């Protein structure tokens, strides 16, 4: 018996939520970043699940692009983290609060 698509979607939703909570509760910029990756992956799972449900590959292509974008984002994001770390000797996002009132 084939797994119902909804199962995948539920897993995806859980993963996404975990990622979200991770972004919110963690303070290490790197871990926050990983949580974001988790969210992205969860979304990819949703895309592919729907693609399978609809019986066509457009969703997969979209997931593919999302991976490419994620790759680019990781590269730039990590570079930013490195740059900030050089300047402030910290990867704690709570230390970076110049942009307030």
């Amino acid at each position, binding site marked *: 018996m084939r797994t119902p698509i909804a199962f995948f979607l539920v897993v995806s939703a859980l993963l996404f939520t975990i990622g979200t909570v991770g972004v919110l509760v963690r303070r290490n910029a790197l871990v926050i970043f990983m949580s974001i990756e988790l969210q992205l992956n969860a979304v990819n799972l949703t895309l592919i699940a729907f693609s399978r449900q609809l019986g066509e590959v457009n969703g997969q292509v979209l997931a593919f692009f999302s991976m490419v974008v994620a790759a680019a984002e990781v590269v730039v994001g990590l570079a930013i983290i490195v740059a900030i770390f050089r300047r402030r000797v910290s990867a704690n996002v709570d230390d970076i609060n110049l*942009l307030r009132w």
Partner: protein
Amino acid sequence: MTDLIWLVPALPLAGAVALLLAGKPLRRIAGGLASLLVGASFVVSVLVLIDLLGVGAEERTVAVKIFDWISVGSFEAPVELRVDPLSMVMALTVTGVGFLIHVYSIDYMHGDPRYSRYFAYLNLFVAAMLTLVLANNLVLLYVGWEGVGLCSYLLIAFWFERRAAADAGKKAFIVTRIGDTAMLIGIFLAFSTTGSVRFDEVFGAAGGLASGTATAIALLLFAGAVGKSAQLPLHVWLPDAMEGPTPVSALIHAATMVTAGVYLVVRAHAIFEASEVALGVVAVVGIVTAVYAGLSAIGQDDLKRVLAYSTISQLGYMFLAAGVGAYAVAIFHLVAHAFFKALLFLSAGSVMHATDGVIDVTRLGGLRRRMPVTAASFAVGGLALAGIPLLVGFFSKDQILAAAYEAGRTGLWITGLVAAFITAIYITRAYLLTFEGEPRSELHPHESPALMSVPMAVLGVGAVLGGLLGASAQTGRVQRFLGPVVGEPEAHAAAGALSEVGLSVIASAVAVGGIALAWALYGSGRVDWQALRARFGGARRALSRGFYVDDAYGALLVTPGKAAASFSASVLDTRVVDGAVNGIGRAFVRLAGVGRRLQTGLVRTYALAFLLGAAALVLVLVVRT
């Protein structure tokens, strides 16, 4: 030749532009060039005059349009010159006297660091003055009017390193501008009611105007004249204007610019006549000014200030003439005054030149022996001013008084006689203290060079022989020439008991009496005038300060005005107007102060808000399906 009338103002204007732009290279020939151009202007004017004399008296008004200047809708103010007897008399006076004074200035200003600039301004002045008298509409007249005011400002403040000169220039410009602005409003009113600013149409429509409107226009225009011609109450700038170079005083503040007001009243006489009160106001302002300024002149120790108050007084005479309807006589006195007053000023300049600027009559004396030509010139001018028979001033002043008498205004006539008496006193005093008696200080005066003496001599001849041009109010050449413009001189209307000869005798007697009195005080040696000065110190001070009119303005207008301005700037503008705006701003800042607490700067707080929104959206979605 009439078509070339534009050359008359254009030549001096060209000179002014050239000298302003290329003052340095033209420095050596600046004086010559400027004089030459004004001379050429004079020649052109003479040629136009000859043309004009060649046609019938009724055809002597020609309008020469040069180009469209401002024209919007029904409002048209072209640059259009008017050639008629009145404008030609004025143009000849301006260019003639102007030329002589230019020549005089060549030596007088020799060695000044801004020699070229001086002649540029002088040329500019002549151009503006010619625009004023040749204009054929009120707006162009106003152009000349303001133009001469500007040149007056520039020339009074010519030695701007001296604070007094700079202040005097500014004062002259601002005080006259008060009158000018009133005049501008008069022009608007004229346009608004007659639909045009051209002389022919405005004055042609004057008869049909409501009396109140005509009065308003006339008085507004007269306000301009009061400012420019330094009549009460806007006369305060003229005595101060003596800070300028003396030839400038001769040209602008005696012969030409200050007479523009008289010209305006004569030119616009149709409007003044359409009003019941305007002419009366003109006459009264004129006579009051004449007496007031004459008295003030007695109290002056500065020779030039004597002449300045004298000018104000004589201008009052001219307004008196215009006010009683004797326009041609007013213009004749204007011309006559241009000659003898310019002569007096040039003589005074000659004195200054010789004494290195000492002009206080109490420190001078006995100059006649060192400077015979100057003394003779001053004497001739003074006698003409006092109205001694057969000199030009006699005829013109006599005609004014006669006109007042014949108009039935005996009060004006008697006051005029008083003014004439005062005139004789102050000018005799000035002459005696300067040229007669013993020198009162260590000066080594010398006679002036030829370029200064010759113009003085020419003007002197004019002052002596000028009477030939207008010996009688009815038959004088000038008066008859002006007739078509200002109305034919009325046939002898013997309104009073005295004949014309009788009037002349009385006027002459008054003049001689004044001279005799002044001689008794200052020349005979029998009275110690310096003791008198000390004894009547209060009265003398009042006279010398012009009855404190200027001081009153300072206390009543300038000081409160400054206070009001600084109140506006420091309290009203910053506290009230800006304060209201800032108050609103502060209220927002306080509001924002609450709101900005949300901006913690912590990314995770923002992300939480994000999540809040996302969760809310999802819930809404679920609830709705």
